[in-house]
């Protein structure tokens, strides 16, 4: 079966013809190409399915006989330097391949419907295929230069897709911010690659690891320099995976279409950072400081992401922060050296989060018809609520995703998160406590999103009286407070780069324009709302369930979410402990479980599971308490009253909660800090050099 390995170089190139053909078609024969629009989706999905079959086959090969296959061609030949191209297949690659292709196909099917009314339907599919190509190239690449090339290409695709709706100035700013932030990471990556080339003289992974280990063994390297290079290399992964200092782009990236958020900014591209660290783990593992740095940044991101997700109003932003926090878990696991747990969480999280994003896309799609096509409205959870009745299938899918992410037992993320948590106890108790309590926070914010979206009544219809009653209703009170702040926020948070007044004006212009389109489409519905007011409007305009093409991928993802956890369930077979995942990853590194027998393992597993499930339940319960829909909260009035009675303590609690919400709502003030310090700094520098250039250098000649 060597053939499969021999021909696997073709993997990244299979989806490539589609973007080339669509691009050429759009440039040369725009009308003809646009008329064929639905036709283009078929080859797209077909080619990706071919890759999927291929990669499943590869994975089966890997399970049967775990081997590493590498093949290189020379790219440039010169006497002094030569770059090589090649591919490198091992278990990590095959896992990533399956992940990318499955999520990719489902998202493609989904977006066929989601984007069907968009002007840029074809452009969207061209970008998507380009992204798939470069992502597949990234995971199969055999040396660091190749990784860098595809790394940048993936970043470019993300730039293009975030800025997909280029008429929105917000999207334009967001895509630039994403690209520049990623570029800072790439800067580190490139320097790190160059540094390691300097030390070892090689780019190929296996040579690199071998030479480097020899050097370390013989103590022939400058330790400081190695640490510097490794941390620069790690910076690339930090930026791509939205870890702490460079996380600012990810929430803004939600300006892109929702399928993109599902595919790129939840499942695959942000996992590229994890992939890189996992790939280079043999390198990092011999440098202890780096491992500490990785786990430290991981834990910071876990906590930060979870706290920032607490008060997001935009459903997708909330999910984005949650993604960031989950990626932090993976980084933490990698930093602890539990490679297996990190990859397992990567897989389970990818499926669950893709499911959540597709669910939120479906919600947005159904809300858009009612509140208008502005992302400020259709993604705003304030206007949602009570969608349970209208979109039942989406609700089930979303609930499964939420439960999975919270770590409720039979679902996917439970297994992986539990593994990380139990490993973290072995690593360091402080980290473990933080990780463990963040699991509670995760449950809290996920259920907050779920409850605000699906439970209660459709808030858009009684906005006016929610304002009156907010004194008695805790969560709406919070919203009320925040809504006053939104206006401030828009002007206070200066976007990363110049957004001049013209554009800002045009933003509003555009917004009203879009709403007007929405009005035209659904004129009847809108008029009913305005005329009949609150109660009667229910029967006329309500969100509708999405089409089957959108529901199908979600249901498939539900299945994945339900059963992916089984990957790591050990099933005893002829006395040997056997699970698929560890079979895939046996030869890899495992720092923490050197010797553990079955019984102890089970015992530990049970205790840890109880702990994590209980904290998750606690989080869910708190969320219920705070965000319980208005009508049902009347029944629990006693409980609320008991809270009220506590008087001064409550005020203190209130203050703390407000503080947290404030911090969270303003994204921890990190964005503001960046925009003030960096953007102003760069702009100031630009002004200064411009002035210098004009007055001094040019002044002399004039």
């Amino acid at each position: 079966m060597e053939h499969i390995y021999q021909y696997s170089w073709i993997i990244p190139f299979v989806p490539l013809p589609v973007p080339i053909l669509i691009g050429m078609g759009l440039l040369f024969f725009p009308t003809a190409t646009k008329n064929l629009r639905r036709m283009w989706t078929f080859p797209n999905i077909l080619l990706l399915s071919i890759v999927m079959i291929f990669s499943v086959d590869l994975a089966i090969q890997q399970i049967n006989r775990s081997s590493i296959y590498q093949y290189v061609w020379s790219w440039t030949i010169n006497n002094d330097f030569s770059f090589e191209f090649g591919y490198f297949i091992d278990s990590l690659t095959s896992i990533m391949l399956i992940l990318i292709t499955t999520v990719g196909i489902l998202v493609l099917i989904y977006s066929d419907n989601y984007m069907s009314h968009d002007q840029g339907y074809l452009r969207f599919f061209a970008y998507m295929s380009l992204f798939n190509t470069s992502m597949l190239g990234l995971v199969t690449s055999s040396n660091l230069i190749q990784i860098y090339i595809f790394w940048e290409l993936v970043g470019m695709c993300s730039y293009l897709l975030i800025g997909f709706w280029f008429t929105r100035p917000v999207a334009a700013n967001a895509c630039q911010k994403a690209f520049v932030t990623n570029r800072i990471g790439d800067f580190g990556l490139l320097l790190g690659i160059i540094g390691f080339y300097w030390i070892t003289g090689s780019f190929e992974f296996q040579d690199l690891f071998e030479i480097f280990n020899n050097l370390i063994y013989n103590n022939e390297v400058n330790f400081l320099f190695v640490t510097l290079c490794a941390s620069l290399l790690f910076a690339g992964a930090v930026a791509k995976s939205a870890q702490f200092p460079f996380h600012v782009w990810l929430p803004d990236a939600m300006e892109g279409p929702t399928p993109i958020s599902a595919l790129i900014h939840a499942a695959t591209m942000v996992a590229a950072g994890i992939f890189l660290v996992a790939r280079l783990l043999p390198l990092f593992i011999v440098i202890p400081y780096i491992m500490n740095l990785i786990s430290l940044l991981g834990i910071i991101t876990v906590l930060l992401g979870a706290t920032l997700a607490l008060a997001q109003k935009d459903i997708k932003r909330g999910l984005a922060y949650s993604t960031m926090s989950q990626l932090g878990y993976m980084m933490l696991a990698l930093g602890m050296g539990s490679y297996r747990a990190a990859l397992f969480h990567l897989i389970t999280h990818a499926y669950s989060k893709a499911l959540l994003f597709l669910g939120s896309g479906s919600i947005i799609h159904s809300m858009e018809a009612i509140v208008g096509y502005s992302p400020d409205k259709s993604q705003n959870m304030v206007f949602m609520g009570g969608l349970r009745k209208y979109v039942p299938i989406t609700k089930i899918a979303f609930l499964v995703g939420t439960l999975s992410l919270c770590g409720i037992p039979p679902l996917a993320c439970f297994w992986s998160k539990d593994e990380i948590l139990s490993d973290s106890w072995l690593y360091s108790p402080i980290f473990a406590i933080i990780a463990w309590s963040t699991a509670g926070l995760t449950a809290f914010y996920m259920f907050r999103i779920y409850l605000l979206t699906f439970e209660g009544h459709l808030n858009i219809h009684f906005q006016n009286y929610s304002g009156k009653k907010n004194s008695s209703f805790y969560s709406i009170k919070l919203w009320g407070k925040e809504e006053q702040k939104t206006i401030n926020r828009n002007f206070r948070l200066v976007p990363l780069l110049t957004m001049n007044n013209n554009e800002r004006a045009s933003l509003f212009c555009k917004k009203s324009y879009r709403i007007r389109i929405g009005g035209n489409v659904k004129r009847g519905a809108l008029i009913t709302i305005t005329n009949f007011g609150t109660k009667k409007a229910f029967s006329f305009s309500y969100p509708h369930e999405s089409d089957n093409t959108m529901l199908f991928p979600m249901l498939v993802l539900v299945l994945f979410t339900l059963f992916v956890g089984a990957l790591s369930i050990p099933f005893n077979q002829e006395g040997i402990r056997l699970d698929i995942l560890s079979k895939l990853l046996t030869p890899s590194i495992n720092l923490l479980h050197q010797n553990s027998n079955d019984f102890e393992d089970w015992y530990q597993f049970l205790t840890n599971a109880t702990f994590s499930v209980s904290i998750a339940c606690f989080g869910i319960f708190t969320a219920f308490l705070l965000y319980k829909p208005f009508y049902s909260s009347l029944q629990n009035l006693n409980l609320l009253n008991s809270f009220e009675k506590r008087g001064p303590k409550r005020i203190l609690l209130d203050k703390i909660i407000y503080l947290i919400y404030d911090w969270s709502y303003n994204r921890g003030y990190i964005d503001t800090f960046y925009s003030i310090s960096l953007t102003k700094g760069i702009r100031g520098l630009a002004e200064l050099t411009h002035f210098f250039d004009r007055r001094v250098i040019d002044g002399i000649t004039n």
Partner: protein
Amino acid sequence: MNYFPWLTIIVVLPVFAGSLIFFLPHRGNKLIKWYTICICLLELLITTYAFSYHFRLDDPLIQLAEDYKWINFFDFYWRVGIDGLSIGPILLTGFITTLATLAAWPVTRDSRLFYFLMLAMYSGQTGPFSSRDLLLFFIMWEFELIPVYLLLSMWGGKKRLYSATKFILYTAGGSIFLLIGVLGIGLYGSNEPTLNFETLANQSYPVALEIIFYIGFLIAFAVKSPIIPLHTWLPDTHGEAHYSTCMLLAGILLKMGAYGLVRINMELLPHAHSIFSPWLIIVGTIQIIYAASTSLGQRNLKKRIAYSSISHMGFIIIGIGSITDTGLNGAILQIISHGFIGAALFFLAGTSYDRMRLVYLDEMGGMAIPLPKIFTMFGILSMASLALPGMSGFVAELIVFFGIITSQKYFLMPKIIITFVMAIGMILTPIYSLSMSRQMFYGYKLFNAPSSYFFDSGPRELFVSISIFLPVIGIGIYPDFVLSLSGEKVETILYNYFYR
């Protein structure tokens, strides 16, 4: 070997054919346009034919050489010939000039003179690249200034006379140093003036004299290249000139300075070069950062692109200064690659200016809807300009990076710092180029001006931009196209540094 004078024909044909324009019957612009295009294409075909059949890649020596005594009186020879170093720029010249002529289609005022000047530029640009004689090099160098000056002063924006004057003052100032250097080298030593590159390359000078010559040439080429602080003519000129002139300026003329640095400073004066190369690298690094951050502060679209090309020139200087095989190859690759990218960016900026009639970036916005094709091409090429992998700029910059770190001339710490600062330039590049494309195309704007109906690019403009784009991506995917041309020659040049 055959002795058909291919190079002489290549150099002389355009200007002679161009002078025939004045004898063409007055039958409107169309005839002149087609005539010029045909001449350009013919020239390009001759060039490619001659190079593909009579140039051997594995031979680092001069090929297609010709040697005629021109003026007996002071030993002036017509010596032309090409080697691995000059074949790339000559092909680039042919390609870009042809496309620039095609891009200048809308020019109607004084079209006779304009097209003649374009053809004269053609000759003037191939001349320096193919000359093998120092004095001939100088004369060609000067000859090419005349059409540029006229093109700058007669077609373009409002302040064109100011910028043309500035250009001519700067370059004339540079030329004086060039002349001094040429005469100094030529008259040094023997009784007979020696101006042949081959004999000069093997000559050695006292160190002080060599340094003086080096400085002279450096100033001349620094004006052309440009190297800071002698760069201020460039943004002004680019800001005002017609875009086809800009294509020539950015695509070819800037490269002449870099070519001169390699050809004369590196090849003829190796000792001084190894003394000066640390300074070159420092200047190049500063230039990358300085020009990139100045570019951010520009409001004028074309000036912003002009500063970006100054910033990219920094990589060439660093590559030249690194004195490694890798670095020099990278510099040559960057010469070619920026020739394409810079020309294409100016072309697209010009075509969108034709439609918008707006120069300042903060007045623009929302052009992506009416002009999707220009938007696509501009987006792709600004990606190419910020060195996206898969495009030629990335390969060139990467090779320069490796050139600097593999260089044995410098110590660890300076190399780290230089690499670090260069890489900061990598962060600044996307900031200015993406914010440029964002300000032009993104967003939404209602065009309420009465004459605001736009046509998207027609087939001609699409053809020009795509035919520039293809080599960019071709080199990016398979850089050996260019590297194989220059590889052997680069080794011979560097041989001097290590075994002498």
